[in-house]
C-alpha cells in the first residue's frame, strides 16, 4: 500500500539532507545517478557500481546508519565537515575569519618543471606584477600565485599541477574559485600529470574559448570542468555552501559532445576520490 501524508512537495532536502528533485507523478526522488523511491526504500534503476548484493538495494538495507548521496557509492553516514578552511603556510583559519596574512616568497626560486622530474627552469621574476606579499599563498597546501599579467588581469584563472594555482590578486580569497581550481589539482593527482597536461588542458582551453563566443555553449559542463568540481566537492565532503555555479554533475538529460571524460562515465564514478584529511 502506498500512502504519503507529509506535505513535502516543495521542500527538497529531506532524504539524507541532499537536494533532490521530487517527481510529482511517481513520488521518486531524483539524485545524480538514479531515481529513489523513499516509500519502499529502493532505487528504481540498477546500481552502476554494483555495490550491494541487489542492484536496487537502498543504503545496504540500513538507511539509519548509511547514506548514498548520488545513487553511486554508498557508505556509513558521518557528519559533514564544516566549510573548508584556507591554509596559509602553517596558519589555518576558517573562511569566516578575518583576512589572513600572506606569505612572502621569491617566485624566481620556483622550478616549474619539477613535476617532470626536472629542475632549474625558474619562472621569470618580472612575470609577476602583484605586490611581493601577494605573490604566494596556499590553498589546501597548494601554492596560490597572484598576477595581473595577460588574461589574469581580466580575472581569468589557471592551474598548473606541480606548480600551483594562478589567480588575479582580487581572487586570492575567493573560495568558490579556489575550490574549482583545486579540482584541477585533484584531476592531476588522480589521473596523473601526463593525462592532465595532454588531455585536460587542451580540452579545457578549447572549451573556454568556445564558450567566450558562443552563448549556447556552456563551459561548465565540459568534462574537464564538472569533473574538477566533482573531485573537489567530494574532497571537501560535499560542503553545504558549495557554489552551484560550479556544477559537480551534469543536468538530467543534458547532452552534447565533450561532456564525458575519455575514461568513460561509469569508470569515472567508480573513482575513489581523495578526501580532505
Amino acid at each position: 500500500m502506498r500512502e504519503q501524508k507529509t506535505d513535502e512537495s516543495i521542500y527538497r532536502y529531506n532524504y539524507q539532507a541532499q537536494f533532490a528533485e521530487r517527481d510529482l507523478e511517481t513520488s521518486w526522488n531524483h539524485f545524480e545517478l538514479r531515481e529513489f523511491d523513499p516509500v519502499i526504500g529502493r532505487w528504481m534503476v540498477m546500481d552502476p557500481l554494483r555495490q550491494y548484493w541487489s542492484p536496487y538495494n537502498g543504503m545496504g538495507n540500513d538507511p539509519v546508519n548509511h547514506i548514498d548521496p548520488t545513487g553511486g557509492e554508498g557508505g556509513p553516514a558521518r557528519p559533514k565537515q564544516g566549510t573548508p578552511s584556507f591554509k596559509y603556510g602553517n596558519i589555518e583559519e576558517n573562511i569566516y575569519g578575518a583576512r589572513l596574512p600572506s606569505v612572502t616568497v621569491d617566485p624566481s626560486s620556483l622550478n616549474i618543471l619539477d613535476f617532470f622530474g626536472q629542475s632549474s627552469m625558474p619562472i621569470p621574476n618580472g612575470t609577476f606584477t602583484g605586490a611581493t606579499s601577494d605573490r604566494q599563498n596556499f590553498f589546501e597546501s597548494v601554492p596560490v600565485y597572484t598576477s595581473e599579467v595577460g588574461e589574469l588581469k581580466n580575472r581569468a584563472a589557471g592551474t598548473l599541477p606541480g606548480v600551483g594555482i594562478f589567480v588575479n590578486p582580487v581572487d586570492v580569497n575567493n573560495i568558490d574559485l579556489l575550490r574549482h581550481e583545486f579540482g584541477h589539482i585533484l584531476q592531476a593527482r588522480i589521473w596523473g600529470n601526463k593525462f592532465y597536461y595532454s588531455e585536460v588542458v587542451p580540452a579545457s582551453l578549447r572549451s573556454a574559448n568556445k564558450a567566450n563566443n558562443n552563448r549556447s555553449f556552456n563551459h561548465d559542463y565540459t568534462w574537464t570542468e564538472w569533473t574538477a568540481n566533482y573531485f573537489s566537492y567530494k574532497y571537501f565532503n560535499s560542503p553545504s555552501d558549495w557554489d552551484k555555479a560550479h556544477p559537480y554533475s551534469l543536468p538530467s538529460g543534458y547532452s552534447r559532445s565533450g561532456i564525458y571524460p575519455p575514461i568513460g562515465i561509469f569508470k569515472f564514478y567508480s573513482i575513489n576520490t581523495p578526501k580532505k584529511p
Partner: protein
Amino acid sequence: MYKLLAVLIVSLVFSGCDYYDYRLKVINKTNNVIAIETYLDTLPDFPNLNHAEYYFRNRLEPKDSIELVKSGKNGWLFFIEESRNKKLNLIVYNIDSLRKYESIDTLIKKRIYRCYEFSEKELQEKNWKIVIGK
C-alpha cells in the same frame, strides 16, 4: 627544450583556463544584511538555487558591495540573452528571513524576497553597478 616547455606552460596559464565575468557589482544601501541571486525569470527557479549556507557565506552587509560572477568572458551578456524576459532578474533575500526559515525554498514559497529587473542597456548606463536601496 625545457625552456620551450616552460614558456608553453606559462603561456597556457596566462592565456587562461577559466574565464569569468565579474562586471556586475551590487551595493547594499539598505540597513539589512541581504543575499543576492540571479535568475532567468522573474520567478525564482528552484533547481538553480544554492543551499542556505552559501548565502550566509556570501551575505552582503549594509554599505558593503559584492561582485557577482558568471562563467565566461561575456557571462552576464549571455545570461541576459538567455533569460525569458531578456533582462537580468535580480532577487534579494533578507538574511534574517533566511535564518528564520533556514531555506531559500521556503522564502520563495512564501514570496519573501524583492525582485529587480534590468535590461542590458540599463545596466550599461549604471556601469553594471546596482544599488539596492531602502
